[in-house]
């Protein structure tokens, strides 16, 4: 046997071995897409404008406070847009003082005086920074929440041209509703003193509160509502509370939160405050014994127990919670509030039953297709048909090996891609074999026919496969998830089929031809 034959043979065996090692066992090494193993794919949009607006409001309030502290009691301000606001009532006489205050406390703003008022506009760099930070923070918060879930290999990434989208992929999750609620929960927690009614709890209607205040709410008080639920979670009605509009402490003052059990073994959330938060809380509760303290989650009152005594650095949040709700709430409080609202742009959830069904069908179709192709090749090309089948088998092994090695994801369209590859891979062999047959018909010897066959067919094989590769490239560019999976398997399949048809089939022919001095006939 010639040396090149040996080396080439060794290379083929080596490639085969590497592919087998990568791919076996298949269940472990092959990365299944969400549409096959089941899971959730979410695309979220972070409402960054909300974050900008809330920063503007904060800055505006701060400025007002400072101006009033400096004795300019006549000023007032209003927000014109998320990045603009106007302050009126600023006397020109105090110009230098105002300038000093503005420069010190509002560094990220451009401002312009016109008469008695000043117009403020946020610097572009500043608002861009806020937007960016909002997404970064949201990403971090969501990651923390999902970590608690213990999902294997979650994917949480920033996306989109504006950089304000987040894509979340969680394989193997079987309760998508819970995940969505967990992620979306802004978890804005506030503790607010209840002005009316006293002693905890709420009242049955808005009118009752208004009656208590003689028809109009005093400054610094607003009405919030809370739901009354039965133990099946069905909402029975609402309760109303008149609460102070500035919170005593908020979620930011929490050090941590943990699920626990209350007096009657009902699930509650134990929370622990930071040092600063603890001081504020102690002061507020110490001064307001006998009043209600409303626990406000996302603007709704979850519960409003009576303050029986001073509470300093820890406490419980209890309501009609199930164990799971308490766990989720603790997770959300621990991970921090979302800096801005979140909208779901896209959701694709595939339950594992659907995924398994797809796999089963795909495999069946693939097996039958493969069987038909094998039979056809044997009938048409007889002995050389075996050559083609060996090349095809190697092709498939190589395909799976590369997929496993690259960690590429196999999706349902990807299975279609593999099946398609089977059909088209034989094309390369067919092109060569037909050429060889032609050359034999024209009277060439077997050896020279094989040479000529491979030589002349090569350009056809390359051109044909490259055009399909170009199509696969566009598919990869355009596609998302499952389509990309298809493009990848198609591309790998084409490259593998080129290798097996050109290199491996050639080697097998050469192997057969080297056996004897002169081969008279070729089974083709």
């Amino acid at each position: 046997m010639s040396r090149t034959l040996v080396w080439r043979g060794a290379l083929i065996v080596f490639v085969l071995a590497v592919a087998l090692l990568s791919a076996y066992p298949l269940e472990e090494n092959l990365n299944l897409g969400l549409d096959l193993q089941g899971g959730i794919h979410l695309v979220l949009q972070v409402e960054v404008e909300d974050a900008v607006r809330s920063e503007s409001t904060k800055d505006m309030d701060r400025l007002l406070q400072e101006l009033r502290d400096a004795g300019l009691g006549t000023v007032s301000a209003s927000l014109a847009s998320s990045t603009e606001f106007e302050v009126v009532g600023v006397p020109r006489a105090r110009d230098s003082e105002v300038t000093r205050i503005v420069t010190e406390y509002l560094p990220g703003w451009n401002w312009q005086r016109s008469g008695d008022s000043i117009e403020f506009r946020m610097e572009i760099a500043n608002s861009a920074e806020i937007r960016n930070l909002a997404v970064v923070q949201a990403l971090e918060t969501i990651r923390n929440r999902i970590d608690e879930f213990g999902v294997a290999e979650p994917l949480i990434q920033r996306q989109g041209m504006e950089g304000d989208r987040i894509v979340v992929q969680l394989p193997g999750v079987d309760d998508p509703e819970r995940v969505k609620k967990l992620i979306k929960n802004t978890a804005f927690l506030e503790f607010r003193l209840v002005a009316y009614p006293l002693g905890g709890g709420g009242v049955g209607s808005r009118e009752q509160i208004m009656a208590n205040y003689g028809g109009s709410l005093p400054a610094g008080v607003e009405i919030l509502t809370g739901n009354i639920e039965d133990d099946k979670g069905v909402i029975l009605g609402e309760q109303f509370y008149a609460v102070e509009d500035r919170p005593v402490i908020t979620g930011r003052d929490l050090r941590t939160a943990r699920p626990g059990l209350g007096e009657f073994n009902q699930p509650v959330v134990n929370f622990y405050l930071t040092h600063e938060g603890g001081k504020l809380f102690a002061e507020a509760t110490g001064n307001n014994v006998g009043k209600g303290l409303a626990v406000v989650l996302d603007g709704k009152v979850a519960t409003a127990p009576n303050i029986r005594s001073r509470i300093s650095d820890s406490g419980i949040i209890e309501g009609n919670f199930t164990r799971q709700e308490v766990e989720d709430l603790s997770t959300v409080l621990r991970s921090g509030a979302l800096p801005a609202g979140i909208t779901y742009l896209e959701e694709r959830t595939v339950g594992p039953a659907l995924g398994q069904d797809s796999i089963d069908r795909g495999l069946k179709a693939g097996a039958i297709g493969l069987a038909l192709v094998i039979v056809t090749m044997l009938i048409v090309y007889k002995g050389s048909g075996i050559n083609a089948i060996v090349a095809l088998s190697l092709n498939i092994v190589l395909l799976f090996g590369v997929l496993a090695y690259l960690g590429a994801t196999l999706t349902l369209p990807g299975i279609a891609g593999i099946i398609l590859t089977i059909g088209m891979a034989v094309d390369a062999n067919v092109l060569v074999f037909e050429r060889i047959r032609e050359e034999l018909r024209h009277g060439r010897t077997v050896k020279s026919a094989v040479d000529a066959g491979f030589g002349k067919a090569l350009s056809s094989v390359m051109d044909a496969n490259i055009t399909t590769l170009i199509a696969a490239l566009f598919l990869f560019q355009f596609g998302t998830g499952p389509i990309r999976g298809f493009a990848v398997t198609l591309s790998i399949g084409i490259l593998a089929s080129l290798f097996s048809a050109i290199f491996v089939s050639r080697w097998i022919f050469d192997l057969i031809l080297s056996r004897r001095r002169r081969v008279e006939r070729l089974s083709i």
Partner: protein
Amino acid sequence: MEFFRDTSIDFMKYRKYFVIVSGVMLSASILAVFVTGELNLGVDFAGGTQLTVKFHEPQEINDLRAMTADAGIEDAQIQQFGDAGDNEALIRTSTVPGQDEGSQQLVMDALNRNFNASPPSGFDINQQGSDALSSLLFDKDPDQVRAQDEEVARNHYDEMAKSISDVRRREGLLESWDEVSSLPLVSAEALAAMKQNTHLGEFAVLGVESVGPQIGSELRRKGIFAIVASLVGMLAYIWFRFELRFGIGALVALTHDVLIVLGLFVIAGFEFNLTTIAGFLTLVGYSVNDSVVVFDRVRENLRRSRREPLVDVMNKSLNQTLSRTVLTSSTTLMVVGSLLFLGGDVLRGFAFILTVGVFVGTYSSIYVASPFALFWENLVTRRAGRAS
């Protein structure tokens, strides 16, 4: 076994007639697309929500339609999914303006109202995950293991809940308590506790696809761009590798293929979604593939005999590649055919495109690509002739 040994069919002789046939098919296709009016766009492109739901009992589509109409969803599209005995349905609604998840919640509420009308308990095993079930069991502690060790008890109920959940994952829906009681990890006491505190709902959601209008229009744009770009890409490659006349021939054949398959696709009522657009892109690749093999032979034959008129060279080349064309088309047809019949609903549209595409593509490689290359050639030489 050789099918076509040394054939000498004069393909080009009746090419004018076949061009007319092609023209008719093309017009019929384009007409079909316009007459059908609205293209059947999937949620990928039109936005909206699609739920795949499995029911315990077989359902009538009309009943389900009435149910959604009652819930205020006016234009729900409902169809059967999967095989007849599966009791699965696809419920599709368009986006409720102003609410991003609105329609999904509406449908779920409607389903719950109709099918789980007076639930015996607040916990539906067919709708909750294994974590929730495990927590519930831990609370009730039917096997009384908590007293000894909380950690071990947690694991005990986690394992139990997972094994139940695994059945649900495989089947989609737990249909009777027998499926639960037959599991080795479930004790009689645990089963009793579950029967008391949970129930098996009448349906389960197998999958959700929800696409907001923003993403829908983005995907639409991307899809059209991808198809156009790949057409241009193909033309560029063929122009580069062959000559312009062949490039034109291949491009015309390609466009012809895509349009005819599109027409049949629309008539058959398939849905345009990401997977089927991928099918069209693959068709583009396959169709060119076919034409390229013929042109490769033509190029080789031309090199050999420069004097021979293009018509004859083309005929010769077509005859020489006939064997390969038939064989490859057959093998490809075998695989996409099995996909079409056995591959399931999700891939059916994709398989249809390729199956029809193989037929049309083979036809066009012979009767569209070559005649057009010929036509272009004659046009150019006639112009050159007039100039000299």
